[in-house]
């Protein structure tokens, strides 16, 4: 059986992760322990969740620069609301998710209504969300709510004393839900159609305006959820947190095999993109002698590799179609 070429980038991503993991294992056998695996999931949970939203945005041919700021805003919002009001934590979380989704929807509406690049609209969103976080507080506020403490300490002890935390599991669940949304719904088909070309998408009957609003609303929702997870993970809300996370998320999406121009990719790939980036960091921690900046350089190289790979693949398939 031949492999469907549309799977090449995804298989490359998974291949790189497995080979990378194996190489790490050869040097540090411990890296295969459930403890490391559990931490890999926990440490990257917030990134994985926000990257799912980013995957949908990028699949549609857009970009969302606001997510890092929205995560910070979410943390601050939760911390401030818990400190200053008597509202129960779950209600605050729901309120937050509504706010961030509406925020994303507003950006999506602007992108469509003004016909301006998503880049610059979400740049405004980035400033606005970070500014809103600053206006709530400029300090780091600890979260002491028992509900949050409970989530923080919710884990399943795997054989080998590794901790499979709730937020780690949540990330995996979100990835699966995102994959269902992208690959198994009409909305997902519309997202791919938009990424393939707005004009053609319209010809095929896609409601471009509505889809654009929903895409950015979803990204906002994911950023909000990621903010909840991040505040659980750090136990605090801090307006200066997660600066630049949008770029890390974009990098994860691209390393996950999604084409930055949109229209092709897999949400599952993004999970492996996130895990690959986490693996690099884990390796550096194990090694101890290598410095942290290698993370950035390796990620940059992987980015380049995938962008060139996609460029080449695009040419190859165009060539193949011409010859067929």
């Amino acid at each position: 059986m031949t492999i469907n070429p549309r799977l090449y980038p995804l298989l490359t991503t998974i291949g790189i992760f497995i080979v990378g993991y194996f190489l790490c294992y050869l040097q540090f056998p411990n890296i295969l322990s459930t403890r490391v695996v559990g931490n890999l999931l926990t440490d990257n949970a917030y990134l994985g969740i926000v990257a799912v939203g980013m995957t949908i945005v990028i699949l549609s041919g857009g970009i969302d620069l606001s997510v890092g700021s929205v995560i910070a805003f979410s943390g601050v919002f939760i911390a401030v609301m818990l400190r200053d009001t008597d509202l129960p934590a779950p209600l605050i979380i729901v309120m937050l998710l509504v706010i961030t989704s509406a925020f994303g929807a507003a950006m999506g509406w602007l992108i469509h209504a003004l016909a301006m690049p998503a880049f610059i609209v979400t740049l405004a969103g980035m400033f606005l969300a970070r500014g809103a976080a600053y206006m709530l507080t400029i300090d780091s506020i600890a979260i002491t709510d028992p509900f949050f403490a409970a989530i923080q300490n919710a884990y399943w002890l795997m054989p080998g004393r590794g901790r499979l935390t709730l937020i780690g599991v949540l990330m995996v669940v979100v990835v699966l839900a995102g994959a269902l949304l992208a690959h198994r719904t009409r909305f997902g088909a519309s997202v791919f159609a938009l990424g393939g070309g707005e004009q053609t998408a319209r010809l095929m009957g896609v409601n471009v305006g509505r889809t654009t609003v929903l895409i950015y609303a979803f990204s906002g929702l994911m950023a909000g959820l990621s903010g909840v997870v991040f505040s659980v993970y750090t136990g605090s809300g801090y307006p200066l947190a997660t600066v630049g996370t949008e770029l890390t998320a974009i990098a994860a999406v691209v390393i996950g095999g999604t084409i930055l121009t949109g229209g092709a990719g897999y949400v599952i790939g993004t999970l492996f993109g996130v895990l690959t980036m986490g693996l690099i960091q884990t390796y550096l921690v194990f090694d101890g002698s290598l410095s942290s900046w290698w993370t950035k350089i390796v990620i940059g190289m992987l980015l380049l590799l995938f962008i060139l790979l996609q460029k080449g693949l695009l040419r190859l398939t165009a060539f193949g179609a011409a010859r067929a």
Partner: protein
Amino acid sequence: MLLSITSLSKSFVGTKALQGVDFELAAGEVHALLGENGAGKSTLIKCMTGAYKRDAGEIRLDGVSIDPSSTAEAQALGIGTVYQEVNLLPNLTVAQNLTFGREPRRFGFVDARAQRTQARAMLEPYGLDIDVDRDLGAYSVAIRQIIAIARAVALSGKVLILDEPTASLDAAEVRMLFTIVRKLRAEGLGIIFVSHFLDQVFAICDRVTVLRNGRKIVTEKTADLDRVRLISHMLGRDLEEAAHEHRKHTEAGDDQRGPLLTFEAIGRAGMIEPFDLAVGKGEVIGLAGLLGSGRTESAELLFGVRTSDSGSASDQHGRIAHGSPREAIAAGFGFAPEDRKVDGIIAELSVRENIILALQAKRGWMSKISRQEQDALAERYIGRLDIRTSSADKPIGELSGGNQQKVVLARWLAMNPRFLILDEPTRGIDVGAHAEIVRLIQEITKTGMAVLVISSELEELVAVCDRVIVVRDRRHVTELAGADISTDAIVRAIAQPEAA
């Protein structure tokens, strides 16, 4: 009648794209819609498919007046379209494309297995057994075309519009497509077939409607038509009409005559077969042929827009390089492309800057053309070509089409090239400007400049050319010279190479 259109009109700013067009389509009929660029074919189709809102007239489908406001609505009513650039998404799988918008679902999620089955079932009548899980982009244009037809038929099922479906298919693929078209016709579909390949029109179509300049010229049974009559309908020439004014070949002095450039075996696979071309000083050479015959491709190879697979160019001093526009310009060539808006003008720059751009590029960025010289050049050409603009500093995008064309001409005249290639220099410009450009071509060759004109307007070619080369099916087939040049002869050569 399945579909009947009466006195349909549609105008855009400045142009009347369609004026009182009537059109009828019966069930079980293949009806060709023919016309050169700008004749109004695509406007008519877009009015039918809801992409444009018509200004006046009526469209009746099955006797009911319809007014679709979107492609989706037209589809739902029963009018499906397959465009030249296939209107499907290459980044989705075949199955996704076929079922897009109507995906089978289970528990709210797309049921991939049912989707696959459904897609296969949709392709089955067409004898297409392919892997529906592959990206559409992985398949050849012919297969994509069939997939698009399958989708359009399944979605609409009454009227199928095929807009240039065979433009990039080879002979075997065209046969495969025609088998399908015949089958659909037998099933009672009304099919509108837009094409510039006349062989195919005669092979598959029951009736033909010709549009020209936004008006319907004629609707006739294909069986009652011959190629020559059809082409004269399309190009607007009555063969009985008397001979036309010929170029006065004696105008240029003898010292301005003589060989200028020789091109040998210029060609590129898939674009145009290798051809030779000798260009004389002060000579006007015409390239005639229908759209898609290889006219523009010939010009692009000469100017280095695409590189030739083989061949060489030389002048009296020896070989010259023309592998890129910059090299061609250095060799003294100029090229005013067919699509003025996309390849010609720099819309937001002023008339003055558009005129001096090529000259500036040639001189290099360091030797800026002084403002005085710019103004002088602009003033000279605005005067000489009678460019109507309130100021030389007006953005060229705000000028009318004819004046934009004159600015592009001015850009090249300012370079004083020895060989100027004009691709459809008079398309889409008004009658007055048209005559001026024809006069101008006559004038500039007096200095020894050679001009290659590509045009669908045969009258124009007859009026200005010393020689006319006829291009057909990506081949230079015939050359007419001097007194042999007539619209009649050109039409015959385009229609039947043997007879010419």
